[in-house]
């Protein structure tokens, strides 16, 4: 028995939501439409998870399930080809979580509400499309769709030096996509007679090694820019800190994951030989990113900057896992993407809640918030502990899996890199505990803070949804692991078979 799931629904729903937002008359309607749309999308993501597991349990071993193919530009062999494997399902689930939380967190946006929600939904549409596409052209299309909403979200609704940050982000991400474009065309033309943009077809073709060596770095660095690959991470701190709350949540929670997913699905899967050749360099740079990100965070006073730099460090783990090229490490990398997505979105949500009430993000100016906003600070503790890798929360599961996978490589180089990466956990503990301690504990430094009210219903709901995500991965990681591992095995078979 096979149950089918129409993946187009995942695209149609945000599209309809976006159109409905444009047509809606009142601001209040807009919010509810966006919330309803993202809630249904979340349900849809769970249905997809369920149906996917059913199908796998039924013994379907096809790498990609629920495929659909429509001719788009047959002249260039471009087809609208979509399908999912375990990794995509996990990423779609993550996206749905972050989107609904982001919508809830933007409940009080006063300025141009309609446009704000429209761009938010458009951004999520780009992510959904990206994670289900099985055609490089379609993938690239969705990757770039997301750039402009980010630019406008930061530039219009942001704070601080928002225009500068928005420009920096748009140009660096555009640079990343330009590299992806060149790599994509290189892949297309080096496939010889079987040239195609189709991922499945390309994965069956042996691309000449000489071409792989040129194309792999283009694609990997191109996607790497999105996921804060050192030294192209500079858009991350500025972009995140200037963005409005939901913008930061989307950027860190979803958008940075596009890059990691692309590195894995496109660069590593299609160009295994290139991946092997460059794996050591990837490891070196991601180890630098992990340590550098951690130390840079120590110096930050602004809560958003703290989370942004720690994102650089955490996303370094994703690339480290990919560079280790073992099944466990790659599984860990994907778990880290999901875990970090949920965690960092929650962190930004909490920062947003605090900032809206205290009007400051400087750690030094806060203190004793535990007394006035117990709910928010509790969530802050949870997310902080998750970030430093406390067992029982998602961060631990992800990092542990990556370290175990890394240790499977028995040589000196990989061991050293693993140990270096491990060291960052200590640094993380220092900056997280210091920041949280300063914010939540101690005496209240500003009398105005005594008037503060705790989180409102929408903020509480958003936080609860994301905390549930963290706990679901942290306490019972097996379901996520079982979802991702077979897909990681398929990728590794391709890498190992040659």
């Amino acid at each position, binding site marked *: 028995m096979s149950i089918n799931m129409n993946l187009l629904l995942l695209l149609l729903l945000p599209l309809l939501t976006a159109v409905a937002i444009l047509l809606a008359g009142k601001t209040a309607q807009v919010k509810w439409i966006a919330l309803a749309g993202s809630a249904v999308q979340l349900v849809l993501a769970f249905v997809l998870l369920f149906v996917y597991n059913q199908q796998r349990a039924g013994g379907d071993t096809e790498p990609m399930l629920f495929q659909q193919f429509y001719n788009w530009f047959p*002249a260039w062999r471009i087809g609208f080809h979509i399908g999912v494997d375990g990794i995509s399902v996990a990423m779609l689930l993550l996206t749905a979580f972050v989107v609904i939380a982001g919508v809830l967190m933007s409940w009080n946006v006063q300025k141009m509400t309609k446009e704000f929600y429209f761009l938010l939904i458009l951004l999520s549409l780009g992510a959904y499309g990206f994670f289900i596409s099985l055609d490089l052209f379609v993938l690239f*299309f969705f990757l770039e769709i997301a*750039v402009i909403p980010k630019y406008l979200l930061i530039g219009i609704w942001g704070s601080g030096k928002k225009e500068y940050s928005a420009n920096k982000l*748009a*140009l660096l991400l*555009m640079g990343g996509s330009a590299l992806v474009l*060149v790599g994509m*065309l290189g892949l297309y033309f080096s496939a010889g007679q079987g040239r195609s943009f189709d991922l499945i077809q390309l994965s069956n073709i042996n691309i000449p090694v000489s071409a792989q060596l040129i194309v792999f770095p283009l694609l990997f660095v191109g996607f790497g820019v999105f996921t804060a690959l050192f030294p192209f991470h500079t858009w991350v701190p500025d972009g995140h800190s200037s963005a409005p709350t939901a913008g930061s949540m989307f950027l860190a929670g979803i958008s940075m994951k596009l890059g990691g997913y692309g590195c894995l699905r496109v660069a590593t899967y299609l160009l295994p030989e290139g991946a092997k050749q460059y794996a050591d360099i990837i490891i070196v740079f991601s180890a630098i990113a992990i340590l550098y990100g951690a130390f840079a965070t120590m110096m930050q006073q602004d809560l958003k900057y703290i989370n942004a730099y720690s994102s650089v460090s955490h996303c370094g783990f994703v690339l480290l896992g990919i560079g280790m090229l073992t099944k466990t490490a790659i599984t860990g990398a994907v778990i880290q993407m999901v875990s970090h997505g949920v965690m960092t979105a929650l962190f930004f949500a909490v920062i947003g809640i605090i900032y809206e009430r205290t009007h400051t993000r400087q750690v030094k100016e806060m203190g004793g918030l535990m007394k006035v906003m117990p709910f928010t600070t509790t969530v802050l503790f949870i997310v902080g502990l998750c970030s430093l890798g406390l067992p029982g929360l998602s961060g631990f599961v992800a990092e542990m899996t990556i370290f175990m996978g890394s240790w499977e490589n028995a040589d000196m180089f990989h061991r050293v890199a693993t140990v270096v990466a491990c060291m960052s956990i200590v640094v993380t503990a220092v900056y997280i505990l210091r920041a949280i301690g300063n914010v939540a504990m101690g005496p209240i430094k500003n009398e105005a803070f005594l008037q503060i009210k705790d989180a409102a219903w929408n903020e509480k709901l958003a936080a609860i949804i994301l905390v549930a995500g963290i706990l679901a991965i942290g306490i019972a990681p097996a379901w996520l692991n079982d979802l991702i591992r077979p897909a990681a095995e398929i990728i590794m078979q391709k890498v190992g078979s040659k």
Partner: protein
Amino acid sequence: MLNDFLILMKSEWVITLTIFLLLFIKIGKGMKNESLLSLVQILLLLNTVTAFFYNKEGSLFDGMFYTSELIAFQKGILSLGVYLISLVCADWLKKSQHLPEFFILMLSALLGMFLMISSGNLLLFYLSLELATIPVAAMCNFDINKKVSSEAAMKMILSSAFSSGILLFGISLVYGTTGTIQFDAITQLLDGSNLQILAFVFLFTAFAFKLSIVPFHFWTADVYEGSPIATTSFLSVISKGSVAFIFITTLYKVFQPMQGVWYNMLVILAVITMLLGNLFALRQQNIKRFLAFSSIAQVGFILVGISSNRPDGLTAVVFFVLVYIFSNLAAFGVASAITEKTGQENIDDYKGLYKTNPFLCWIMALALFSLAGIPPTAGFFGKLFLITAGAARAAYWFIGIAALNMIISLYYYLRVVRAMFMDKNENPIEKIKFSRSVSFGLIICAAGIVFVGLFSWIYQYIQSLIL
């Protein structure tokens, strides 16, 4: 025979009849500007619609005039462009004291372009090129009270005369070495001698002038800035498009045996055209100059597509010109609406425009994203196909430079978006009222920008015409 005569040249006939009709109206009692404009718009729409039907291949006058379904489609695109100009610039046109003359000139130029892309020998090509150029110089002068407008006309006529001279010299050398001016006969007689290469270089230069390829672009910015926006948009879209069409035919068909020569020229010129166009656009303040340099950069991208020397390249160029018409006319339309009501042309004046004119801002943003090649706009598909076509032959560095240019261009397109949406301004331009035909024209452009790329049958249709 007579049937052929009527049907093969039907676009030309419609235009000619329209021109005569306007002449009679002018000589006779005359009409009110508004009713005349509506009449012309209807005739232009008719012309656009008829251009897409009953097309067949054939030639007239011993091969001097040649047409095919592809050429008819190209004429259709150009007619559509002129129709859109008559819509988006309606408010300026209405006020003009010499409306019939403006359209007579514009349609004469269009007629010249139709004959040019249909020409089968060098004589008709030269004559029609002149017909397509000289009326435009007069159109440049239509802001009669402004000095810059006359200056623009003067620059336009001088530079075109200069390029015509070069073209004629090239033609005479071609005739001297091959003894014929028929396109298909020339192809067989090309042997790649030095004199023929020289002749080709001269012909190429003339094209480069018209397309404003760097380093033959110097006239562009001044002429664009000085002319009224209706003329500027005609120059930047219709004129560029038609020359691109005949340029690609000339290279792919007539000078196919010399492709080794022109391929290198194209690659080098494409690189410097994209780079310089983009770098100069970075620093422009005036929106018309800004769009002038951006259009130079866009021509660089067209050259990337042309360099593929395959049917793919031809398809990509025709498709891109179609997309370019929608995107550029939307941008010019918005600029025209603003300039018409407030007289302001600087990017800084657009600050805070979103508060007062959200509709215009969204159209402008859409147009600029399309020009920058951001999905889901049609410009993304257009640029990507041009680059893919070019990549089929060239090395990675060539595509790399094209991709790099997409980043640079994004920077300056975002500058305008930033001014409109983000920058604060105490006294933004007040709410602008514009007539229904302007908003209709802008909506058509926006629809074109959004749907032409996503609906892939348009691309496939163009391709089916070529193969």
